[in-house]
């Protein structure tokens, strides 16, 4: 097993790929019997310190329907300067530039260690990154001030040549023109009227050739004269202007009467933002950043009326079909998301409010475009401030950890077909021979668009084995999958990353143990979870749970060893041992349980679940619990109520929350102030240790988790108690307590 674990790990590190099965059942029938589908988690832009991009274009298979990229798995005839495509078996001539190749003089893409390789291509115009702030002004003064400061700060984090734009909204929507002197100018739109893209562009004066509008201003770059607009200006030019503008931003001046919500035109504001970018920078990486402090209350996309006496929809309302605006609003935002995605623009949502803000309806904006979704209580919290700052964080090489407009193309060898993908992407509807008719997730295509992604963005891609049972694959045959990701790097370069992987086929009837041993239960759990969550979006909760249960049962049936009618005889092999536990916690997770979560929260959780990499996803499914005590070094402990002991400090990471929980005794000690006494310095260290570890997690996590420091009996302890497996409940706790008491006595 060690070998498989290593293999899996190595594969993940090199290629960013985790397959549920690392040896593939060789026929369709067998594959279906495996219960867990053949699928992988792909992190297309996994950060690779050791992968310098090559500065030339990839060599493509000449068959028009294939166009696979030359890769280490291809057979190469060095003398004839030919290579055979390992997907379609087309024989291709090397391009002239490859004339000098030989066995000893191979281009990088033929070397086995370059199963993942990145090309930089010099095609098309380079456009600077674009950031369009869409800011809600119906905020409390304090919140608005904090938000303004965050926005002003963010200007300094942007690359100087990045274009920025500002749209503010409340009852009206204002598109600010950034290049004017002397008088600040903005275009105003009614917040209640849905405008077509064309109308918006007409109204903003974008439909005419941009040249006249640029009078008096030097053009951005000579080679792209048309692409620019008054509303999007390079940061370095209007830095001061925009800072002032943001500084002068006032709360929405329209009066809000008692008992009403402020009128907030989020729907129109977003629509205008999308229309603006659509008209000015189609097919260019751009980020619409929506900052909202409450639910949309008017116009298209309204989520709740302005009467405070009508509360915003809850799961209960939704189940009762009582959410009046939900369907219409969702449709509105979906349309926007699709339009935006089609143009390669992503939409971030930063929603900070104590009540719901309509994330349920707006989620698709972030989900389909790969945008961020951040939920907080107030803009004036470090949670928001740091999260927002982290959006502009830079990677190891000083580059922004964001990429735009990615186009993921998946190619498979002929025994495999693509069933679908789940992640922050939309289908590009690329039909082809390798597209399966059975869809899992977003299917029916071999290409997806991911408008924005970062090094951790991870997609689940599901495959279907189509090889018939009666057409055995020759011994040693391997199936191959190639992932070609074209994207706009944050440095504005176009890049292509190509990952080609291959796995052995195995006949499930004769070599089941191979297959079993090559099972990646972590990947499988996440892949199944993604399927489950994906289904939960559209199906009733109990149905999904039943489906999950059935899958688990079937899996256990298939791979468990047991004697009939003897529960104690049940055994699972090591490669499956953790899987049921994952599924158990998944069932309890907020991704599938809506109880105690608002629709917004559910949407928020699901959003993040659908895009994080395997490690983070697992944390989400089954939070990690560390125990700190005097008994030894910190250790992970079972996520179980039995792990809560008086003399322990627990650190729980649920991805969304980090909880530090002081056991009863520890809490008492702390109250007594032992940590301040020199002689109990070790206690001080003990108290400090989880804090440091938490800090470390906080450093890298996006979005910033909610940080909770609590203790036995504290009100916030519920965050921990709700997560642990209640092996001790009020039912058996009593008995246990009694027995404990008896022991004491």
């Amino acid at each position, binding site marked *: 097993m060690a070998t498989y674990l290593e293999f899996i790990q190595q594969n993940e590190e090199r290629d960013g790929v985790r397959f549920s099965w690392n040896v593939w059942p060789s026929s369709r029938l067998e594959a279906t019997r495996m219960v867990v589908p053949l699928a992988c988690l792909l992190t297309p832009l996994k950060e690779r310190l050791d992968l310098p991009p090559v500065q030339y274009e990839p060599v493509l298979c000449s068959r028009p329907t294939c166009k696979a990229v030359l890769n280490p798995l291809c057979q190469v005839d060095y003398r004839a300067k030919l290579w055979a495509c390992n997907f379609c078996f087309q024989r291709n001539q090397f391009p002239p530039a490859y004339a000098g190749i030989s066995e000893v003089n191979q281009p990088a893409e033929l070397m086995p260690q370059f199963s993942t390789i990145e090309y930089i291509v010099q095609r098309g115009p380079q456009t600077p990154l674009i950031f369009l702030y869409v800011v809600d002004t119906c905020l409390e003064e304090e919140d608005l001030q904090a938000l303004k400061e965050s926005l002003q700060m963010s200007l300094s984090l942007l690359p100087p040549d990045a274009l920025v734009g500002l749209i503010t909204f409340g009852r*009206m929507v204002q598109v600010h023109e950034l290049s004017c002197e002397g*008088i600040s100018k903005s275009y*105003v739109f009614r917040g209640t009227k849905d405008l077509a893209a064309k*109308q918006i562009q007409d*109204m903003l004066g974008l439909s005419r050739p941009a040249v006249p509008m640029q009078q008096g201003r030097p053009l951005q770059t000579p080679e792209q004269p048309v692409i620019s607009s008054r509303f999007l200006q390079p940061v370095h030019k209007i830095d001061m202007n925009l800072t002032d503008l943001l500084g002068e931003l006032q709360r929405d*001046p329209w009066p809000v009467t008692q008992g009403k919500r402020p009128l907030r035109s989020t729907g129109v504001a977003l629509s205008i933002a999308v229309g603006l970018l659509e008209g000015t920078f189609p097919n260019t990486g751009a980020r619409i950043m929506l900052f909202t402090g409450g639910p949309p209350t008017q116009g298209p996309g309204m989520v709740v009326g302005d009467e405070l006496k009508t509360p915003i929809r809850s799961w209960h309302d939704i189940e009762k079909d009582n959410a009046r605006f939900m369907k219409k609003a969702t449709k509105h935002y979906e349309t926007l998301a699709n339009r935006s995605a089609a143009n390669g623009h992503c939409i971030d949502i930063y929603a900070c409010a104590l009540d719901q803000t309509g994330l349920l309806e707006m989620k698709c904006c972030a989900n389909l475009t790969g945008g961020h979704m951040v939920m907080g209580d107030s803009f004036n919290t470090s949670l928001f401030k740091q999260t927002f700052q982290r959006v502009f964080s830079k990677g190891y090489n000083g580059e922004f950890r964001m990429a735009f407009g990615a186009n993921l193309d998946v190619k498979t060898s002929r025994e495999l077909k693509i069933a679908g993908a789940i992640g922050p992407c939309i289908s590009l509807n690329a039909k082809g021979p390798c597209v399966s008719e059975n869809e899992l997730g977003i299917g029916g295509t071999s290409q997806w668009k991911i408008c924005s992604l970062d090094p951790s963005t991870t997609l689940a891609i599901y495959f279907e084995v189509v090889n018939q049972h009666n057409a055995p694959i020759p011994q040693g045959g391997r199936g191959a999958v190639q992932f070609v990701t074209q994207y706009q790097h944050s440095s504005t370069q176009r890049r292509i990353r190509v990952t080609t992987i291959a796995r052995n086929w195995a006949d499930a009837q004769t070599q089941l143990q191979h297959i079993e041993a090559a099972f990646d239960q972590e990947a499988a759990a996440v892949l199944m979870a993604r399927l489950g969550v994906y289904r939960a979006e559209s199906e009733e909760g109990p149905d999904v749970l039943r489906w999950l249960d059935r899958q688990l049962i079937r899996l256990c049936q298939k791979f468990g060893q047991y004697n009939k009618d003897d529960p104690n005889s049940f055994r699972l092999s090591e490669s499956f041992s953790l899987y049921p536990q994952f599924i158990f916690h998944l069932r309890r997770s907020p991704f599938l349980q809506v109880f105690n979560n608002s629709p917004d929260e559910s949407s928020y959780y699901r959003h993040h679940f659908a895009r994080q990499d395997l490690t983070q996803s697992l944390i989400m499914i089954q939070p990690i619990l560390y125990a700190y005590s005097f008994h030894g070094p910190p250790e992970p402990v079972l996520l179980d109520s039995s792990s809560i002991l008086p003399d322990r400090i627990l650190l729980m990471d649920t991805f969304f929350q980090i909880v530090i929980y002081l056991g009863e005794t520890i809490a008492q000690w702390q109250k007594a102030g032992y940590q301040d006494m020199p002689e109990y310095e070790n206690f001080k260290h003990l108290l400090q240790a989880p804090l440091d570890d938490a800090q470390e997690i906080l450093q890298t996590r996006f979005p910033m988790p909610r940080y909770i420091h609590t203790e036995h009996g504290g009100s916030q302890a519920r965050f921990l108690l709700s997560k642990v497996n209640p092996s001790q409940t009020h039912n058996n706790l009593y008995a246990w307590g009694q027995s404990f008491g008896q022991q004491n006595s």
Partner: protein
Amino acid sequence: MSQQGYVAAPPYSQSQPGIGGFGPPNSSIHYGHYGDPNSSYSAPQPGVSKSAVPFGSPAPVGPPPPGAQQFSPNSFQNGSGTPGQQPQRFQGPPPPAQLADQLNSMQINSYGPGTAPSSSVSPGHRAAFQGPQVLPPAQQQMGLPPAPQLPPPPANSVNGLCAQPALPPVARQGGIPGPVPPNPNLQHLPGQPPGPGYHPQQANYGPQMAAPQLSYPGAFPGGPAQLAGPPQKKLDPDSIPSPIQVIENDKAARGGQVYATNTRGQVPPLVTTNCVIQDQGHASPRYIRCTTYCFPVTSDMAKQARIPLAAVIQPFAAVPPNETPLYLVNHGETGPIRCNRCKAYMCPFMQFIEGGRRYQCGFCNCINDVPQFFFQHLDHMGRRIDHYERPELSLGSYEYVATSDYCRDKKPPNPPAFIFMIDVSYRNIKSGLVKLICDELKTLLDKLPREEQEESSAIRVGFVTYNKVLHFFNVKSSLAQPQMMVVTDVAEVFVPLLDGFLVDFEESRSVVTNLLDQIPELFADTNESETIFAPVIQAGMEALKAAECAGKLFLFHSSLPTAEAPGKLKNRDDKKLLNTDKEKTLFQPQGNYEALAKDCVANGCCVNLFLFPTQYVDVASMGLVTMYTGGTLYKYNNFQLDADSPQFLSDLRKDIQKKMGFDATMRVRTSTGFRATDFFGAIYMNNTTDVEMAAVDCDKAVTVEFKHDDKLNEDTGALIQCAVLYTSLSGQRRIRIHNIGLNCSSQLADVYRTCETDALINFFAKSAFKAILSQPLKTVRDILVNQTAHMLACYKKNCASPAAVSQLILPDTMKVLPVYMNCLLKSCVLASRPEIPTDERAFHRQLIMAMGVADTQLFFYPLLLPIHSLDLKSDAVPAAIRCSEERLSEGGAFLLANGLRMFLWLGASVSSELIQGLFNVPSFAHISTEATSLPDLDNPFSKKLKHILAQIQSQKPHTMKLMVVKQREQPEMLFRQFLVEDKSIYGGASYVDFLVCIHKEISQLLS
């Protein structure tokens, strides 16, 4: 009447001429009217205006007999030859009768004596007068009837002379009371305590009526067939009634005096006469003028006479400083006291009964309780003790403070706002107009109107600029610099901001100034030439709506709105439509402007439009909202910064500073038997009774037509109460009340005797201009001619003494109706001529729809002043002359003004002294006709002329642009159009021709 009896020859009697010689009073009377305007007129008129006496006096000349006749019972007269009725009216007796009716018992006394003495006295007078008059009358008469033939020339000259002589008589009358005393009529002046006013008037009228008979064709008095009389052509212009004479006579008789409105049905001085008006229970004629001050009692009578029964109400008319402004009555929370049934407001027409505990409504006769707080005892006359302490009991006009019941949503209104909306399209920027406006506003905003007692204006201001999109400006005082908010959604325009759009100028001065400095620069390099229009108004209205206040928009616009937006207009100026049934469409608005106007009115949004067109801009459509909302339309064709900015700026200044009321609703209530049926003006009517006006300023007048419901009562008369609910400049809700009482009579003669031609023309103009929207112009013109003929025919038939068919007989009060009517018919609105731009016609149509009596009078019959012979010593404006080329002279200089434009016409041989004095250039040839103003020169002549210009200008809403016209140079054509008595270059009939035509019509009607 008497004439007939008198003269064997009908011709004579009818036509003054013959009579003149004879001097039968009647005849003389006729003659006076008739006679030339100048001479005969002058003589009679003075009398007319002041008292009957004059008339009698001139007329009497020869005619003691007639006098006798008059006195003699009607029967006699009748017997003598004419139908009994007619004579009755005219004769002496009737007037007294009326007097009796109208006056208190007091008067009755006068009655008896009055009649008798007059007869006896008259001769004496006559004698006195005769001297001078004799000749003229004879001539006049001669002139008239014979006119067709040859006599004219001499007549003219004579007339001219006569004119002068005529004056003296007047003077005499005025001054002569001494000799006159015997005449009862005259007495009025010196004053019978009881009803001085009455006596004279009636007395006057009586005779007047009779007098004004024009035997127009009558070459042969006897000749019945004069109609055919083609000779008319040669009719002597001096022998036909002269408006100038009428005006001057009235001035002489009543000018400079105090006119107290203490009597029901008294006819006020003409609009052209300056006098001080004292409110003593009826609204001042500045507020209400009626077409007749005596309504016929039955609708049959009204139909017979076809005299429109109408009142021209100018509820916010400016009053000169020497008259008392309206009192403000505040009844606290209970609000104004109103009749329970008809809701009429407490006014002098309410009769208190039962010791003051109850009152009877004068309008509906309902008996109401007097509210406790309002109770007051009655004196022995049955009048409340506090009668003179309460304006609502003793005055014709006053104001109430309204309670919240009278407010929108029962909330007291916010102070109104002014929004300046400037078209910043290419043309306006290039012409420098935008800069001009912005610069002007900087100082002008300090002069926003305010209530007398307040220190600063409560009016807030806002700014919008636009081309094909709208730019709103945030000029909140706390901002460092203004913010511009562009609204591009013109299809469904809205207001992008609330706070900071409408500001107090004082508070936001620096930001506003900053903005006004920046606007011209902001758009300096614009190349946007398309504009929108309806959305701009919409935006302004929405802004006011959002701010919950009424207000006024000032739009400065230059071109046809062709940008894709609601209210987009296309050029539809099609000359081919002229003289077809479709011509009316040119005056109808395109698109949905009606609905917009309706919205504006509903929200109290008045739209003032300043147009600067260089070509067709469809005034009919663009001006519609302005008209419906009580705004004013200003139009500057081919605006040139240098030449036209003084005119424009003066208009703008005047308009901004105007006193006005906002968000007004007017209701006209009448006593039983008749009611208001039709309303004309810059108004909007949602239903048939409420006149809605987004705003109403001092120049806007509403003409109201009345119809009979039932028989009127001669005792109680016809009472009218006009109540205007409005928001004052300071944002106070008020009700302005004007009350006026009219007489009723079963005698047509009484009706004719109290007619007012100026008001009639106002009514005819408005009703015709309204009618052209739905009827072919030809029909409208025909109706006008027809009705004129009808009214006059009815008079001749029923009121005048029997005369030959061929004689044209005009009632004294309608002497100048034909000439005015002709002016109306010739006005460019009704003249379907391709030479006249459609926009100009629509523009005039609109202006006139909102005009008051004084403005229409001047507009239709321009003021023509000889200025070469100015009397530098006096302050007075020289006497006007008739608008005819014949009156001009090569050696003279003349000033013509019609309320919209002004011309200075210089004869070819005008003295160089004058030229030097006015223009500071050596000779005629050096005068530049480009100038639109006269240089300020330090010589008495120039100063005097400037003074006159200022005086003429002072009372007119539009600033008149001065144009210098040299005789026999091209622009003279333009000037000639305003010589309204002449044949117009566009084919309009000359006065004489028209008179002939009317006469023909009358004869036809009577035959």
